[in-house]
């Protein structure tokens, strides 16, 4: 098992697996790392963690409010508590505990929302988390992160373990390609430019950065449109400096997120741009205000245009419209 842990390469795994492997690496040298689960160790890929560190996992059963409250109590006694639960339940059922016991009381809990967005696909709306950025953005004292690839995931988990601030990190469970190894710095609140281009800016977050990059290649090849692609892994605090920089010369801006079009990355960017007198053409891509079609994650995202083809099409319309 040790060899497996050490050999986790930051490429082509599910972010969920990288999260679990990173926590194991950290826990080996830090007895204060405590994972708190709500019958979610299997879905969180934490069974090996539980086997290796039985004294560093607290199981509360299917009880998300208690999950977050207990994690806050652990954190207040000096533990680095990672509360792990599907994003849909964690950020809705336990929202008051997140607001009061974590953020308001400043207990440094690391809230890990697994299988976020529409990762659960055909399991339906009960299991989708398309609200989490929106509701959590309105809560003071909470860092909100959606890592795009394995590199960002590992870095985010390491930083979460180090920081004294409350953090929410959400990711999905499908295999993610590595975005770029050129930009190797990672810091909460600092977006990463993972591709440069002269005609268009795509600001994406989490696991929509990968199709955004594919779309950028397609636009280059088929239409000669050069796209800058930003991985805006931190939704809050949002990297306003970077938005200002990429918006400065007036290029059209397309935002993409696996989240409702309301209240997430897109609207956060829009309000910054509008308040600061940027008049770039602008479009938000996300999930519309409806219960989604039935299908796999891929099918649902494809249906709403969050795919290589769909993003390329939306970008063309934006550039030419």
């Amino acid at each position: 098992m040790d060899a497996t842990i050490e050999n986790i390469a930051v490429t082509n795994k599910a972010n969920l697996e990288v999260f679990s492997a990173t926590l194991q690496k950290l826990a080996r040298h830090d007895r204060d790392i405590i994972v708190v689960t709500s019958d979610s160790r299997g879905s969180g890929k934490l069974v090996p963690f539980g086997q290796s560190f039985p004294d560093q996992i607290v199981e509360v059963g299917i009880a998300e409010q208690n999950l977050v409250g207990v994690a806050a109590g652990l954190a207040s006694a000096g533990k680095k508590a990672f509360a792990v639960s599907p994003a849909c339940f964690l950020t809705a059922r336990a929202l008051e505990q997140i607001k009061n016991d974590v953020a308001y009381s400043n207990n440094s809990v690391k809230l890990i929302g697994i299988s976020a967005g529409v990762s659960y696909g055909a399991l339906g709306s009960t299991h989708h988390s398309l609200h989490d950025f929106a509701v959590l953005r309105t809560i003071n004292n909470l860092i909100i992160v959606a890592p795009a690839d394995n590199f960002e995931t590992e870095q985010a988990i390491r930083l979460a373990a180090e920081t004294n601030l409350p953090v929410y990190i959400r990711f999905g469970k499908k295999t993610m390609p590595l975005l770029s190894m050129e930009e190797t710095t990672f810091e909460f609140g600092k977006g990463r430019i993972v591709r440069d281009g002269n005609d268009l800016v795509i600001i994406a977050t989490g696991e929509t950065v990968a199709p955004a990059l594919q779309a950028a290649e397609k636009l280059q090849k088929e239409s000669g449109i050069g796209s800058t692609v930003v991985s805006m892994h931190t939704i809050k605090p949002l990297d306003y400096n970077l938005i200002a920089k990429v918006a400065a010369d007036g290029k059209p801006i397309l935002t993409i997120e696996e989240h409702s079009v309301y209240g997430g990355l897109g609207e956060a960017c829009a309000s910054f741009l509008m308040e600061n007198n940027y008049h770039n053409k602008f479009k938000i891509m996300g999930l519309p205000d409806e219960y989604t079609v039935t299908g796999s994650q891929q099918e649902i995202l494809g249906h709403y245009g969050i795919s290589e083809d769909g993003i390329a099409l939306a970008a063309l319309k934006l550039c030419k419209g």
Partner: protein
Amino acid sequence: MSEQELAHKSVEYRRKILKYIVKANAGHTGGSLSCIDILNVLYNHTLNVDADDFGSPDRDRYIQSKGHTVEALYVVLASRGFFPESDLETLCKYRSHYIGHPTRKVHGVEQNTGALGHGLSLSVGTAIAGKLDKKNYRVFTLLGDGELPEGSNWEAALSAAHYKLDNLCAILDKNNLQITGPTADVCNTDPVDKKFEAFGWEVRHVDGHDLKQLKETFDTLPFAEGKPSMIIAHTVKGKGVSYMENQLKWHHGVPNQKQYAEALEELDLQDENI
């Protein structure tokens, strides 16, 4: 502290609760008066906490789940030297740190509470940390009987027994009234002792205004090895001021000057009779 000294303290705390509620023109009067004897015994007899060493990882923790009776907590913390009592002149005033529910901005407060049903989970987490770290500190939380229908209490009650948290003690301030009416009519939780016993807790009943009983009960913690302890403290809402006792309107009623003077007279008399 002797029982006589504690008794004087209780009267003094009741005076101060009323004083600052009148000054702020706001507060949870009835509940603060029902829980004050419990807080008196906790802070002057039971808890290992020190205003000058509040950051100590070995301190006992007190988490007030029924956060709305914060006036009781503030006057006790002031008397234990956590902050100058004169700070309470600003209670609920513009830009004051002394807001109407417990906040960590106030020295001595363990957790920000106010939304009900949160204290027990926080206490469970802190008690688990104590077990993991092999510390001897104990965790106390004060629950209101009105907040028991919050489901999170029962989630936490299960975890407390599951993890055999004999370093955890919950005290139920059972004053039998909540804002709408008698707790038994709003959402009956009785027999509450049987419920906690069934959840794996060791339960004791006390008169929540009998300082001797409270002292002795706290002294026997934990009630059973490997089990969390529940003290059901039978209390009277508004205790100590005759016209407030068991009267719904004093849940968050503020006495006018005449009522305040009457209350002080009653408390003076109680002080003389100790």
